[in-house]
């Protein structure tokens, strides 16, 4: 199938291209920009006048809930959500049931995802068996099965000796370790940032030190083991400052932030809104400003959706009992655009945080618009706004603090390997 996307504003953060032009796709690839190659006389034509054509989004954290948690969502539903959000590649954390700690589970997931022919799925394998933080998984086997990195998801490794060995072992093979820094004992079943809101509402807290102490431990172990670490979902100003300093020292690390934390703070919990029950917790205004500054200066490399579809029942409970997380695949683009507008950031810069930069963290070639590159594309209208409702979301998870909010940025077409898989 040959396709010509006509007259769109082509934005490629990797090559710094930002121009209105035609894009030609054939055999799953981009074959030309601007100049029409031979054989495109009667191709599929997409009018992209007034629209932006950029690489398909790459999401570093999207839970598809398979295997085992199909009552929350299914691979089918969440893959539809991904392409509706312009997401064409995604990394899924190992916190499934059972966790992704055996090659067979990973192969099955890859197989199921391939058959659906939607977003490319990059499993992150469990770092320890059962995510229990005690015994190492067969990382090399898991890599051969398709894992691109290893993580504990949100499960703790209370024993630092185990963490040290896991990092050492991963470093042996050059595998990346993805860690969300949080000290298990300091977090102590907390559910909200230590601040005025938690004090008023009487909610158990997670202090900033739960993040910074875990960060300090991991940074020290990185120096000792030579492991390469990706830090997931940083939440605090102090955490950003530590990562900035560590990067300046030349440590091999990258870092992401969840899109919710770029916009929301603990005040948004309001009267116990369980959609704001997130991991890590929403922190203060000052923390949010530091996260934004970290994104601008490159301390934070990428924005992820931290997609966590949850059934209504698990949110219709008292705040501390609510399943943590928010649906995000379909909000990643509009919320990134909202941040760009508020930060007065050129679109090409903002899109880099959800395309080529996360691609680099995944170690994949995608996330760019270049001739001969894979034709994974997101075509969107940056001006069209819509109210986020349960009905408009394809994800089975309707749990988002942004329900009822009007957001700008509507995906019109999503291409995967040159196939039009979504039309908005």
């Amino acid at each position, binding site marked *: 199938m040959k396709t010509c996307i006509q007259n769109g504003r082509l934005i490629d953060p990797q090559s710094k291209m930002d121009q209105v032009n035609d894009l030609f796709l054939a055999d799953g690839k981009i074959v030309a920009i601007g100049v029409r190659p031979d054989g495109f006389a009667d191709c599929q034509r997409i009018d992209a006048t007034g629209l932006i054509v950029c690489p398909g989004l790459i999401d570093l954290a999207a839970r598809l809930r398979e295997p085992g948690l199909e009552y929350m969502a299914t691979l089918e539903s969440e893959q539809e959500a991904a392409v509706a959000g312009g997401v064409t590649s995604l990394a899924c954390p190992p916190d499934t049931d059972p966790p992704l700690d055996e090659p067979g589970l990973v192969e099955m997931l890859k197989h199921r995802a391939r058959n659906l022919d939607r977003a490319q799925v990059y499993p992150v394998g469990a770092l320890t068996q059962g995510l229990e933080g005690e015994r190492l998984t067969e990382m090399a086997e898991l890599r051969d099965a398709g894992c691109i990195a290893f993580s504990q998801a949100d499960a703790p490794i209370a024993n630092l000796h185990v963490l040290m060995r896991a990092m050492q072992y991963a470093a042996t093979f050059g595998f990346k370790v993805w860690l969300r820094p949080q000290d298990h004992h300091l977090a102590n079943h907390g559910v909200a940032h230590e601040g005025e809101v938690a004090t*008023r509402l009487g909610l158990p807290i997670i202090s900033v030190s739960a993040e910074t102490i875990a960060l300090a431990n991991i940074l020290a172990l990185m120096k000792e083991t030579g492991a390469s670490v990706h830090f997931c979902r940083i939440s605090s100003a102090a955490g950003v400052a530590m990562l900035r300093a560590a990067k300046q020292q030349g440590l091999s690390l990258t870092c992401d932030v969840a899109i919710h934390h770029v916009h929301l703070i603990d005040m948004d919990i309001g*009267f116990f809104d369980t959609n704001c029950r997130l991991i890590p917790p929403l922190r203060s205004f000052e923390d949010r400003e530091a996260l934004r500054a970290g994104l601008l200066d490159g301390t934070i490399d990428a924005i992820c959706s931290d997609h966590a579809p949850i059934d209504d029942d698990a949110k219709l409970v008292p705040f501390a009992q609510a399943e943590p997380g928010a649906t995000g695949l379909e909000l990643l683009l509009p919320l990134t655009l909202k941040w760009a507008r508020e930060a007065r950031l050129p679109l090409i810069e903002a899109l880099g945080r959800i395309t080529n930069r996360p691609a680099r963290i995944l170690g994949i070639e995608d996330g760019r618009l270049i001739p001969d590159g894979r034709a994974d594309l997101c075509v969107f209208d940056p001006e069209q706004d819509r109210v986020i409702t349960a009905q408009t979301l394809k994800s089975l998870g309707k749990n988002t603090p942004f329900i009822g909010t009007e957001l700008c940025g509507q995906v019109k077409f999503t291409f995967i390997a040159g196939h039009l898989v979504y039309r908005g």
Partner: protein
Amino acid sequence: MSRHPQLNASGELRHLLTTEGLSATILQQILDTAESFVGVTERDVKKIPLLRGKSVFNLFFEPSTRTRTTFEIAAKRLSADVINLNMAVSSQTKGETLLDTVNNLAAMHADIFVVRHNLSGAAHLIARHVRPEIHVINAGDGWHAHPTQALLDMFTIRRYKQDFHALRVAIVGDVLHSRVARSQIHALTTLGVPEIRVIAPKTLLPAKIERLGVHVYHDMSQGLKDVDVLMMLRLQHERMQSAHLPSSEEYFKYYGLTPHKLALAKADAIVLHPGPMNRGVEIDSDVADGPQSVILPQVNFGIAVRMAVMSILAGAQS
């Protein structure tokens, strides 16, 4: 988030979930109404027909004897039918969700739910999901709020001290885990108390508590100086297991209210306690049973205040 979830479109009380965000007018209205009920509780015939034909469901997801009983007495004095449900050993252990339970009970034509739960926000959750004609009274949710306790404390203070605008009040003890303290602080600030102190070791104070309008003290000898009202908080025994405190003996030595420490307050200072008391932990028996203690009158006023809240809610438009 537009209007407060406990008010209706006319700004009247529809549920009582917290003292935070309630106007001084509404607080005074409750206290004034309670004043008119104090006489009722002292009469021979203690019933008035204000809630005749109405059903009050006591939903206690956490064990409680005192609060549940005072709500029951209050409802009965207003001639309501009272159904007590001890949810701690009922449907919750059978896996039914909180809202399922509440919806099932609502179908039995409840008019007022009195809810006690061990998690903050439970009463808000129920209030948000019940049918509009049902009123919810929070009888304590987690560490968040216990508005009727705070209101009966305000009633007690007003009885003995009249003018809130001339008072210095100290709240002593485990503020961190106390729904009573939070509700007291909001009520006291709204009613115009110019100086509210909290006195506790750092392990028992939540972050930025001063943002609620209180002054923080860690030393009883400074914190109690010249106060008019002492509001003692109950200390749970599990605080010693969770590394908040080393022992109840050391706590009593530094933060327990003894006659010696009470002497630092004004000579006519009054002492309140929400009960049940731990004698020899947060309060000495000589103080608890002494002339400055208003702990027993508090219990009696609690019935009048709960009658007031129920009658006001029943009169509000849904």
